[in-house]
């Protein structure tokens, strides 16, 4: 916990690695969101329903993200929980034009929050109210209310409207998310981690 470390972290010189989980119902746009963050020549031109999961890597403000893009189809949702334990943040993508399934989203969210590997940890959760360009899309405020986000007291969370196809709103969300993740990753907050110096070597 030397002064040097603090300085390094403060100036953002030391690169931090975090693992995040991207979840949400099928067809909410998880893979498209991640596709937006990929380098230009890595981008896939066509997005197909994910079976199982995909691992993508991207960087934001000098934080390296390893994102597990989980499949949202009903029969694979049980598989999310295998990855709760060792993630340091969750991105929850919601299709804001799909009013009908908002109740399903809420149910899945409740399951996630009650899971022993998630409950009690101050995991930052970013909600993306995706597909905001659709005509009948709900506003982010309405979605927050619909999902009952005000009940989440022990975790930092943030909701923002987004359009994954154009990338609108994603930057805002990820900037917040990166800050949160970095705070969690601060040396003082993570006593269980080994000395950061060792990692810097």
């Amino acid at each position, binding site marked *: 916990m030397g002064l040097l470390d603090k300085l390094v972290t403060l100036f953002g010189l030391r690169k931090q*690695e*975090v*693992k995040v989980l991207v979840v949400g119902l099928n067809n909410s746009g998880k893979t498209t969101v991640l596709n937006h963050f990929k380098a230009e020549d890595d981008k896939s031109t066509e997005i197909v329903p*994910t*079976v*199982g*999961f*995909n*691992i993508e*890597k991207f960087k934001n403000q000098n934080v390296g993200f*390893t994102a597990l893009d989980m*499949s949202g189809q009903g029969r*694979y949702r*049980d*598989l999310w929980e*295998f*990855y709760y*334990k*060792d993630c*340091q943040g969750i991105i929850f993508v919601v299709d804001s034009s799909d009013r009908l399934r908002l109740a399903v989203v809420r149910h899945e969210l409740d399951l996630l929050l009650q899971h022993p590997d998630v409950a009690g940890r101050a995991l930052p959760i970013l909600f993306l109210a995706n597909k905001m360009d659709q005509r009948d899309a709900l506003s982010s405020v309405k979605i927050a209310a619909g999902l009952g986000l005000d009940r989440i007291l022990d975790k930092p969370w943030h909701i923002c409207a987004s359009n994954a196809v154009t990338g609108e709103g994603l930057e805002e969300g990820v900037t917040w998310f990166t800050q949160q993740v970095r705070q969690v990753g601060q040396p003082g907050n993570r006593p269980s981690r080994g000395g950061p110096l060792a990692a810097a070597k």
Partner: protein
Amino acid sequence: MAFKRDKKEEEDGGGNPFENIEKTSVLQEARAFNDTSVNPRKCTHILTKVLYLLNQGEQLGTTEATEVFFAMTKLFQSKDVVLRRMVYLGIRELSSIAEDVIIVTSSLTKDMTGNEALYRAAAIRALCSITDVTMLQAIERYMKQAIVDKNPAVSSAALVSSLHLARSAGELVKRWVNEAQEAFSSDNVMVQYHALGLMYHIRKTDRLAVIKLVTKLTKQSLKSPFAVCLLIRIACRLLEDEDGAPGADSTLLSFIESCLRHKTELVIYEAAHAMVNLRRTTAKELAPAVSVLQLFCSTSKPPLRFAAVRTLNQVAMSHPSAVTACNLDLENLITDSNRSIATLAITTLLKTGAESSVDRLMKQIASFVSEISDEFKIVVVQAIRALCTKFPRKHSVLMNFLSAMLRDEGGLDYKASIADTIITIIESNPEAKETGLAHLCEFIEDCEHTSLAVRILHLLGREGPKTKQPSRYIRFIYNRVILENAAVRGAAVAAMAQFGAQCPDLHENVQVLLARCQMDSDDEVRDRATYYYTILALKNRSLYNSYITESLQVSIPALERSLHQYTLNATETPFDMKSVPLAAVEPLVSEIVAQKAVPEGTIMSTPAPQRLGVSKEESALELVSSIPEIAALLPQLGPIFRSSEPVELTESETEYVVRCIKHCFARHLLLQFDVLNTLSDQLLENVRVSLEPAEGYRILREVPIPRLPYSESCSAFCLLEFPQDDLSASTGTFGATLAYMVKDCDPATGLPDSDEGYDDTYMVEDVEVTLADQVQRVWKGNWAAAWEEAANLCELEDTYALTSMRTLQEATTNIVQFLGLQPADRSERVPDGKSNHTLYLAGIFRGGHDVLVRAKLALADGVTMQLTVRASTPDVAELVTSAVG
């Protein structure tokens, strides 16, 4: 093997680094996969340990496997190539044990379509191992692309994986035939080979399509030698099929012949091997193939020499003259530094050589027999067996050699093959019997294999009493009682009893010995001794015959079940042996054919076909008991006496496929009709087979199939009563028609369009009830004794002229099949070149009537037969004689 490992360890110095790893600690270590930042080197090492454990046969539970599997999925975040490839291997190993393995589908599809060439082929293989039929559609597009990929490794991987998938999802893979076709035109030798494999597999069930494919390809010259080899094999299979299209045959043969001039040795050998192994090759066609093999015999490359000499060895018996032509080259190979080649060369020469050279070759072989492995020793033994049948006069030399081999160290397979050979010699050559038995006696004095000792004791019991001096065997047998384990002691007791029963002058002595055996420490041995002692004490010849000389004729599992049933219901009546179904004796004729199909002297000993533990009648009873309408009647019907082989009542490619199985009871006949609906747009209801029974038969009950959807097979039943007073009316032909109600339905869902249907009928072939359906085969160990005993039963005699038969063997085979009786004393085999022959048959007619038949055959213009039938009732005897006429 052990020696090899030791040597390797010495070289490694440290020995196997994974020797002392434990499952629990490895699983513990595997948790490192969950770390946020992956250490590729460490994880690769751990994964190696996991794979090592799995390959050593360590079993993982489902939870354990799933845990490791999901931890492993997290390694996809690492970009390390070695680690990723290890992950693919891990996925394949765990795919069958862990749950939810489809989780990696997307990750693998990404890798298989990505830019990293090192990932793609392995990802395809891993993907196909985790995919089941339901998920296959999702990856079908990627598979099609991969098959036609430019990269040969990717294309090959996709083709081979498709072959594996075809096992579970044949229909889907069939749709990839165009892609396979395109891959086939690839320049890469492996891709072309694999593509041909897939193309053939897709067409395999359609003979015409295969012929078309092969004829088309034989005209092109293929780049890949492997593909040509496969093509040769496919062509051979087509040629071996009996109903081959006559036009295609000559093209196929000339194709194989042209391959003898191919530029690759691999193809040349394959073609030569195919030629000599074809059952129908003539001597003329054979010559070029043999000369190719002859050339190979003198090359400097050991593998080629080995292949050539091995092939020659295999066909030495079927084409001796062709192989004789190579004798000179084979002589040179006797001293080959490679022992395997030398062994094969010598044994080939033994099979083909003249009688005079036998002594010399045997001496040669004796010089190094101790240096070769058991497998090759078995080849030597088989060669000797062939020699003995060829040169009966040499048996003493060969027998001495065999007994020397018996004394050597060796595994069970090896010893068993020697014992087999000696037994064959004893059976085929009466002169050799005494010496052969003496050698076997000596062998069991010091035999560590219980199963072999038991077999030999049984043989001594059977053959010993018929020799000139039976008493000398008693000592050997009784020694076993003193020295061996319980199983051998039991067999020895049974063998001694045979002597007691068949040699009156030994009776006293055997009784003394058996009395001693009653003191044995083992229950089984004591029981046997008491049993035999008591029977022998009665001094009744017919009792000896039925309880000592003949073995039990009922089926053992059925007996067990009947006894169990009997103990469940407390009754006063004694158990009736007649109520137990008889054991079906496997038709020996088919066995002989099967034996011939196996090429003589193959290196790998072919395992004997496994007999099913459950007989046809047993499984039929199980099926029938599950039908409530029939099961209710079963107590009246009694046990199933005999179930026939299924008979096709339709062609196999018609709208409805109907098969009939005839179950015969003591007084009833149950017909089981298996109906298969092959029309996807029809749902059949109330399906039954309406019969026009022959005179005297009465239909008691019919059980229709309530509902028969597309591609399902169900059974309808019809229960009839045999004609009561006139036994001769029991053979006959029933007209049969399939009657049902049709409902048109949607092929996709199988649901009927409406509730309305219409009645329809469909003609099928007649059902024939023959004598063979009503007779169970029974094996008589001592047919002559049984025949004498039956002298006071009804006897009928008649003479027939079988004009359509050309040879005695043909007539014998037909009579055995027609009467459905069991031949005894190997009389179903007619020795070559004889003009008369006597066939002994035995069986039991339904209702428990013994039937014995003696057929004297004489070959003149056609075959003349004098048939004598002895049966317990005149009706049965008459039925048998009338059945032939």
